[in-house]
Each structure stands twice: as C-alpha cells, then as structure tokens.
C-alpha cells in the first residue's frame, strides 16, 4: 500500500481508441486538445520536463509541446490559478493541475472569488479547467484523500464535473477545455490505473450537465458519482441475488446538475439512495436528496437516504479509513433497507 497505489510510475500513454485506463484517457484527452488547439496550455506543479506530473498525466508533453506550453509552477496555487485566469481572459485555455485536490484550498480565492464571479460582474469569460486528483481509499491520509466538490458546487459561476469511467474522463475533459467557463474537473485517484474501459477515438465529447445511467433497474435508484459509481454497481450485482433490481445513476456533472435525470429515476423507482465519498454532512448529496424529497415528494415510497464519508478528516490508518468510507457492502445494506421500507 504505497504510492504505487496511485500508479505514480506507470506509463499513461496508450494507443488511442482502445480499452485504456482512466488516467490514460485523461492524458489522451489533454494531448488531443493540445494538438488541436494552440491556445490550450498546461500549468501546475511538476507537470513539465521529463517528470510530467505527480501522476504522470503530462508525461512526454513538454517534449511534444515545449516548455512554454507545459509550465512548471512554483508551489503557489493562489498565484498560478490567478495567472490562469489572466491567461484565460486573454483568450488562452489553460488547464491547471493542482497536485492533489486537497491543495485546491490554497487557491480558493482565485477560484471562488475571482474566476467564478468574473463573467457575471463584467462579462468576461474565464475558460480554464482545473484538474484536481481527488478521493482516497488508498491510505493517503487527511491531506491526500479529500473530496472538496461541495464547496465548489455551492459557488455560483463554476462548473464541476467528476468522471467515473475512462470514456467520460476523456469526453468530459475535452468538453471542459472547450467550455468558456471555469470548470473544476475532479479526478478519482483510486480509479487511475485500476479501472480500464473502452474510450472512443478522436473527438469524443460528453456534454457537461448530463447524467449517465450506469445501470438500469426498477426497484431502488442509487444516485452517485466518481469512484462510488463502481461500488454502487458492485452492490447492485450482489443485490440481484436478493431479487432487488437496482438502478445506478452516474451524475458525471455536479454543477450544473442533471435534475431531470435525477427526478425521472426517483419517480420511476420511488426509492433513492444518494452516495458520495466526501463527508456526508452538508455535502452535495444533501442538495440531491433535498431536491428529490421536494420535487418527487408524492412519488416516494421510502425516504431518500444518503451515505457519505463521516464528519471527520479522512483518517490515514486502513481500518479507520475503511470505517470512514462508503463501500459496496454498506451500499447493499442500505439498499436492502430501502427496498424493504
């Protein structure tokens, strides 16, 4: 259980249009956009040179695109995210890597106060993307495991996406880069090299704001995103044995939220479980549950339930982190309870 869990050292470039890992899909999307559009530049800590980023997403990029397009930054998130905003105002499309999503708070002002409010205030677009490697479950401790998406969903003016599959990782990153607004793109570290999937070749985009039905089902709906999608699907498979037919909705985009898809599924099943790895209290799941409980009020057969992380910093030690974090077993238990309601 070392840094190798992130696959720090493994290669990310794979042949296009094949099955590939989640992280390779991110690299591919970024590489293709940079080839297509000279306005796309990359900046962040350690993203350049022969190193290519803590997770190697930009390995080989400096060679291909040059040092002025793949820029190593001093450890100054507030300044370099602000600089990305300046570049974006001048018409570039910067893609910023924060080394771990946990460090996004160091640039909080640059994101929530300036970039997010800019278009509303004086009509100037800020077309940047922040790539933020998030999530835990791999013994990385309180500062390399965070899921800070709720803060950004609550912030007017941002878009927030969280791909759960290699195909969406590619499609959402391309869409985010082409979007004229500031987009925070949360990556699920635990999926980086553990998850493989088909990825469409070439110009594959996924519209921001549209959920994906990861699994159809009629009895209970699980609404979730990121790595938890896979825990939910695993739970759903287990529950087949119990005769419970579980639908899994992968939100993909948290802001804007695909409220239509959420409500449709809620109405269809009447029983909804909302899940995320971020701590549950005042998390994004609260918004989703409140939305369903309001708008689908008289179509619900059971209360909208939520599973999330506990209201504690993400603990380091494996038994503690396991207790902190939702998983397929807890999901299955909760779905059973809902089905019996």
């Amino acid at each position, binding site marked *: 259980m070392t840094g190798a869990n992130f696959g720090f050292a493994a290669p990310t470039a794979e042949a296009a249009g094949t099955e590939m890992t989640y992280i390779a899909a991110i690299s591919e999307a970024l590489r293709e956009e940079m080839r297509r559009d000279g306005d796309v530049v990359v900046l962040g800590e350690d993203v350049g040179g022969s190193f290519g980023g803590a997770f190697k997403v930009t390995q080989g990029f400096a060679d291909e695109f040059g040092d002025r397009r793949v820029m190593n930054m001093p450890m100054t998130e507030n300044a370099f995210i602000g600089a990305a905003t*300046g570049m974006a105002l001048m018409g570039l499309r910067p893609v910023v890597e924060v080394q771990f999503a946990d460090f996004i708070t160091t640039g909080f002002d640059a994101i929530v106060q300036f970039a997010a409010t800019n278009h509303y205030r004086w009509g100037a677009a800020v077309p940047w993307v922040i790539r933020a490697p998030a999530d835990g479950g791999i013994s990385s401790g309180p500062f390399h495991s965070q899921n800070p998406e709720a803060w950004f969903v609550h912030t007017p003016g941002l878009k927030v996406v969280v791909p759960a599959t290699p195909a969406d990782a590619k499609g959402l990153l391309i869409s985010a880069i082409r979007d004229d607004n500031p987009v925070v793109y949360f990556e699920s570290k635990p999926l980086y090299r553990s998850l493989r999937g088909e990825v469409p070749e070439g110009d594959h985009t996924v519209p921001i704001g549209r959920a994906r039905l990861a699994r159809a089902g009629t009895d209970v709906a699980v609404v979730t995103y990121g790595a938890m999608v896979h825990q939910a699907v695993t739970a759903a498979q287990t529950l087949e044995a119990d005769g419970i037919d579980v639908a899994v909705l992968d939100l993909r985009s948290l802001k804007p939220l695909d409220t239509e898809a959420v409500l449709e599924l809620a109405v269809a099943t009447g029983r909804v479980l909302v899940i995320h790895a971020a701590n549950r209290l005042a998390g994004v799941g609260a918004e989703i549950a409140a939305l369903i409980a309001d708008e689908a009020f008289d179509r619900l057969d059971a209360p909208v339930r939520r599973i999330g992380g506990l209201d504690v910093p993400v603990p380091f030690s494996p038994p503690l982190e396991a207790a902190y974090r939702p998983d397929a077993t807890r999901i299955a238990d909760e779905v059973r309870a809902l089905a019996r309601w």
Partner: protein
Amino acid sequence: MGDIPLPAPPPETQLDLYRWMVLTRTLDDRIMALWKQGRGVGGTFSGKGHEAIAVGAGLALGADDVVAPMHRDLGCYLVRGLTPERIVANQLGRITGVTAGRDANLHGMGDLELGIIGFVSHLPQSMSTAVGAAMSFTYRGEPRVAMAFAGDGSSSTGLFHEALNLAAVQRAPLVLVVENNQYAYSTPLSQQMAIDDIADRGAAHGVPATIVDGNNVEEVHSAALSAVAKARAGGGPTMIECKTMRMLGHAIHDGAEYVPAELLEHWRRRDPIDRYRKRLLKRGVIDDEGVSTIDKECADAVEAAVEFAESSEWPDPASVERGVYAP
C-alpha cells in the same frame, strides 16, 4: 526620488497628463459630493491624492496593453477609455454602468476592449491575473505589456509575493505599480511592516524596483514608460513604488480621524494637481485661460455623466440570474 530633474515630456503629453488628472479629481470630488448628499448607492472610494499615479502610469501603456487597476485608480480607468458616464452609472448601480448593476463602486470595472481587467475586493487578485495576462503575451509572442496596481497593504499579502515571484521566474512583461499611501484602512505602515521601502520587496524575487514621488506625475510617467519599454523588450518585470498619501478616509464612511493632521497637511502641500498646474504655468505650457478651460470641460463632462447616470434605468430584477455563465 526627484534628485535629478527629469527632462520634461512633450507639451502635448504634459497637457494630457494634466487634463486627465483634473478630470479624475473633478469626477472623484463629484462622486464624494453625491454620496454626501445621500444620492449614492452603497459605499464608495476616493482616490484623492492618487491622480498622478493612476494617470501617469496609465498613460504609459499602449492601446494593446492591459491594465488591472484598483479602487484608488479612477484616473487609470479614465485614461483607458471608460467614460465618466459608465463610471458614475456603475457607482449608482444602473444598467448603463460598466457592470450593469452587478458590482459595486469601482469593483469589477473591467472592459477587455479597453484592456482593463476588473478587480475584486480580495486584494490583490488583480496582480496574479495581470501576471497571467503577461505570460499569455510571451506565449503568443505578442509585444504587449500588463500593468498591475497594488497598495502598501497589498504588498504584505502572500499573493503579492507569489505573483511577483511568478512574474520574475517567468520573465513576464509586467509593470507593477505600488501605491504606497501610508495606510491600509486605519493601519499605518509601521503596523503593517518592518521595512522602510516597499521597493525592498522586489529583491525577494529578483525584480528591480524603483522609488518615485507618487505626487509628481512626470516622475511616475517617466518611470512607467521605462518599465513598459523594458518589459516590452523582453526585459521582464519591474516594480515602481510610488510614495503618496491617501487624502481622504479609506472609503466614504470613514473620517480617518486616525491620521495625524500634520501628515495630511504635509501632503496637501504636495498635491499632485496643484503642483503640476503651477509647473505648467511656470513653463508656459498652459496659461490661466487654458486652466479655466480644462476645469470647465471637466466639470461639464462630469455633470453630464451624473445626469446620464441618475436618469439611467435600474437593472431589471428579472435579469438577476442572467450572465453568470458565458454562453
């Protein structure tokens, strides 16, 4: 700082510098008066005393350059082409204001057509934004320069140092104008920092820094011209520390009783506009009639702006959710 007399700029430039300063002061005074009469909306800021900096530095930029002014830089917004109409309308929250009622007083008064980046309260976000703009010029090989303004208070913020360091290590074409007006709100320099000159902060990042008399518009202008030329030629960033004094309170509500009267008096005698008027009269670049004409033109322009703004529509409440996102 003012030891070696500078060669005077061409008479046209002298008149320009003077005229913009007078317009700035006239507009500033008028806004203060409006608020005192209860005709304002929310709070507002005066840049009284900062005219030589805002105008002198602002006029050193070319049309394609970009600037990130702040709350004391009324003159800079003006020289970049924001009309008094749009400015007053902004302060009054009207649909015809720069932000169409979205942002307050001088906040957010950006216009990319005019090369102006709108600022946010969280100081000095504009500085890192300007560094990024400057980096984009280098990336694209454009001979453009970005200028940022920052106060003495801002010079202690982390972001100031991060941004300056970034500009230095990237050799970004940045000109940083530090407006050292002795106070951050009620806090004097002695409680903000343990150094005498903010220019000393350049050395922490390898950025050359000069100190100028911020109440001498030609000195500011000349230093800014050099820094802009150097940046444009690929010479990297420069810091210009302008020593001045905030002549009114922090904002309209603040009587600034905490400022010693002698200090204000000292600086009042060095008023940038009075001094420059005397100088131009002495040089014969302008005569009394010329002075009156400019006064009158400025007063008229400002009056028209107030009239325009006060008779402008309020924004439609139904539009409140519009514009959060670029389409």
